[in-house]
């Protein structure tokens, strides 16, 4: 996802002379091609995320499209108020990129776990939140991420994520649209971000146990694809949300908010993710995903328990 991001960024920079890249002293190697190609449109703001985010707003007020790049919680929680006041309130084109969604930097410890960022960014009016599942989804929404008005947040992995999305399905991707992966009649597992393979794997395991499980991913978490959710609510009785992120106010929270507003809704929403905790476990992404019950086998077990009325 990260390499796709930088490639698409360079393509857009070639089209838009007002595109500027600002980093908080991160992106070693990754950003070098951009720095080389556009040295006059690259700013390293140093390790000063608060000033960096306000500065980005100031540049955007002067007509720039400012892409702010950092990792983990640094371009989000560290400078949340600057995003709110300086960027979102001023309705400027500041595009925030977080590399390291969820447990991507698992072994580095809890400071580097981006597990509350979607909740925090989602609650700010005027901020679009993207959480693509893989490189294909990233490529499909990059143009919109970089060119649509206002503030947008992009949450991506470091790279090497399995690609499950179909480029043809994603062609012409519109912000706010869910991407169905497979249909099902018993339940749907809905995902945001790079955790999609766990959902697909869980659905496969559940199929072996006789269940028909649909899967869909949501490259856009805000605005939420309420029409698609309404369609699913008329189709199945259980929606499982899955995210490498807290279940409080994030993707699952967004789904709950939408579904709770539907008249005649009969679907139950069950949220899988971090259960309102910080991780102090040491381990890589795969290890932590499993520890918190977000791998295919654990998700399958959780879904089966729900379908059997045991949870």
């Amino acid at each position, binding site marked *: 996802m990260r390499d796709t991001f930088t490639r698409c960024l360079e393509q857009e920079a070639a089209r838009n002379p007002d595109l500027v890249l600002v980093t908080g002293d991160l992106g070693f190697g990754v950003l070098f091609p951009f720095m080389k190609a556009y040295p006059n449109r690259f700013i390293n703001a140093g390790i000063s995320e608060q000033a960096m985010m306000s500065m980005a707003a*100031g540049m955007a*007020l002067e007509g720039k499209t400012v892409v702010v790049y950092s990792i983990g919680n640094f371009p989000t929680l560290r400078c949340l108020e600057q995003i709110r006041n300086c960027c979102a309130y001023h309705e400027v084109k500041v595009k925030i990129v977080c590399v390291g969604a969820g447990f991507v930097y698992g072994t580095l410890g809890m400071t580097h776990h981006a597990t509350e960022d979607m909740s925090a960014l989602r609650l700010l009016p005027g901020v679009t939140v993207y959480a693509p599942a893989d490189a294909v989804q990233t490529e499909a929404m990059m143009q919109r991420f970089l060119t649509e008005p206002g503030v947008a947040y992009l949450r991506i992995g470091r790279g090497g994520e399995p690609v499950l999305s179909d480029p043809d399905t994603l062609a012409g991707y519109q912000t706010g649209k869910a991407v169905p992966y497979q249909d099902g009649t018993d339940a749907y597992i809905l995902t945001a971000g790079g955790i999609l393979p766990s959902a697909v794997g869980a659905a496969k395991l559940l199929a072996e146990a006789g269940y028909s499980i649909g899967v869909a991913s949501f490259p856009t978490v805000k605005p939420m694809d309420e029409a698609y959710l309404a369609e699913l609510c008329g189709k199945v009785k259980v929606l499982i949300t899955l995210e490498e992120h807290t279940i409080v106010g994030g993707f699952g929270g967004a789904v709950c908010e939408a579904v709770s507003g539907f008249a005649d809704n009969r679907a139950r929403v069950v949220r899988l993710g971090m259960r309102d905790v910080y991780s102090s476990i040491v381990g890589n992404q795969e290890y932590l995903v499993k520890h918190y019950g977000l791998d295919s086998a654990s998700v399958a077990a959780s879904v089966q328990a729900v379908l059997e009325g045991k949870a």
Partner: protein
Amino acid sequence: MSFEKSRDLSYRVRRHTLDMTSRGGTAHIGSIFSMADIIAVLYADVMCHDPHNPQMPERDRMILSKGHAGAGIYAVLAECGYFPTEELMTHCQNGSRLSGHVSHKGVPGVEASTGSLGQGMPMAMGMAMAAKMNGQGHTVFCIIGDGECDEGAIWESALIANQYRLDNFIVTIDFNKIQSLTSVENTIQLEPLDQKWATFGWHVIRVDGHDHAALHAAYAEALAARGKGKPIVIVADTVKGKGVSFMENDVLWHYRTARGDEFNAAVKELEAQQP
């Protein structure tokens, strides 16, 4: 020169803002009065701006980072002709567009909304950075408070502006020595403030922030320093509540609203100073 224009403007700013804060029952009159001469000099004689064309590309930009003194900016803009002075009386009234902390929404002449300290200066710095990138010749002015210098983002910005040689960026510090609860000295010491900025790589000018001749000279020096590779800071020694004897240097007037006899006494003192 007698600097009649800026002196008259500073009087009008004080007079309006006394009415505005009194009518609105709002705070920060001390913080407004301490910077009244600074903004009067900037808008009367220093900045390139056009009230009839607020978005003129070549205009100088001004960001009030100490947004709590926003009434002062509204008053100076109205006096310059950006909008009718009658609207000033809607300040902080229900349904008004003139909020207590300065807002750009629908208010011509206000470049950015501020109020959360430490955010206006880096925004202004971004505007200066963009101007450099665009090859534009205008200057970006910013006024910050002394208490605001407690904010880390001020010093982050001081480092970044030096790194990028933003010599089109002129920051003025309203150094009135009093913040919310007590003096700056008894809160977070800043002195030697000019030396701090100098060691951060800035061109530093220190000035009496109420002496119009000195302020004009300071801004002339600052404008002459543009293009010489250093961001510029003017440390303006000011008096909180300047212009009304019982408000001066009294922390009470960070929050207190003049009403009744106090309002009448303040009006009398100000009107006695009318140029």
